[in-house]
């Protein structure tokens, strides 16, 4: 068989046309200016629970670097998952139709991406690690608190709602380098 890397030179390497490059950059630029998704028109922070009906409840826990972040009782699809306890002691509860992916499980950072629906996160206090939840470009960072994040779609726009139930969170909109701190009662 071929040596490592020999194969790469036999792949096509077509040059994109100038028009294609312009089109692709325009799409990227639009997302950078307006948010992660072009459908995002506003980011709302505040109270209120968005109830979303649906059938599937999904929490995907990929195998990541050690120590593994294990959601006890997590299942892939079709079954009820009222609450999952993470290895660091935090708890995640997803609404029906919600879906989330654990994107990082390092000792210094736990990352969860909420793709749709609503999730409630009860985060164990561990000052030495960052617990971050991302939803459509919005990132919520916490140390030890309980909060809800809901993603809703309405007439082509996506709304991410963060509700703090205990403690303090920091919310960063798409592309924002600094975040807004929210405490209980703030929106």
């Amino acid at each position, binding site marked *: 068989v071929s040596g490592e890397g020999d194969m790469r030179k*036999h792949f096509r390497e077509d040059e994109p046309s100038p028009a294609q490059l312009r089109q692709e950059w325009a799409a990227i630029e639009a*997302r950078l200016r307006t948010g992660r998704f072009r459908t995002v028109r506003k980011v709302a922070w505040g109270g209120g629970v968005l109830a979303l009906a649906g059938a599937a409840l*999904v929490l995907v826990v990929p195998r990541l670097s050690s120590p593994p972040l294990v959601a006890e009782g997590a299942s892939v699809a079709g079954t009820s998952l009222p609450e999952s306890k993470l290895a660091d002691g935090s708890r995640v509860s997803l609404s029906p139709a919600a879906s989330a992916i654990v994107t990082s499980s390092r000792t210094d950072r736990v990352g969860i991406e909420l793709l749709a629906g609503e999730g409630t996160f009860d985060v164990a206090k561990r000052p030495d690690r960052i617990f971050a939840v991302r939803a459509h470009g919005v990132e919520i960072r916490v140390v030890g608190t309980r909060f809800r994040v809901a993603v809703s779609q309405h007439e082509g726009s996506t709304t991410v709602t963060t509700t703090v139930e205990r403690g303090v969170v920091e919310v960063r909109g798409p592309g924002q380098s600094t975040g807004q701190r929210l405490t209980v009662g703030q929106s």
Partner: protein
Amino acid sequence: MNTVVKPKEDDRQPINVGLVLAARDGDMSAQEALFRRYRKMVFGMAARLMGTTDVEDLVQDTFVEAFTNLRRLREPALFVTWLGAIVVRTAHNRWWRSRLLERLGITRSKPADIESLVSASAPPDMVAEMRQVYRVVASLPADAQIALVLHRVEGMTLEEVAVHMDKSLATVKRRVAEGAAQLDRILNGEGRRLP
């Protein structure tokens, strides 16, 4: 990740640190210049990782992610390696999502489209080997899939694979060995032997 790697002179172009710094400060023209310079690299890497040329969304996600988080890049000279790691992470996430949708019965996975990936000048035996590699790749877990492509196809050293995947060297060695063993079984089963 403590492994130290040298900046990769990808596309045989030196890293323009000033350009990276300007892009990090939010200069959109600098970001566009970086996109134009590294789009080909990102597209090619994404295509080879996913086994298809239908990777425009992945390319777009990679650059949006890169420019959104560029302030986190401490060493601008490592921009290309950092960008490559984002391609890998984005591909990994997409792989997981597609597997999820597949398990839910919402979609069915598409086999690798080797013909669309291969150069017209590629010799037939190489094309046959590519088909075998990607057939094996499709049967592997995400980590082994990515590790095998980065090592076998992209030609990265195991240390570079570890950096791009944000995994330990030992883990990468296991994943590559897993893929190589599977590839060996298939090739042996078809009358060929690995050296």
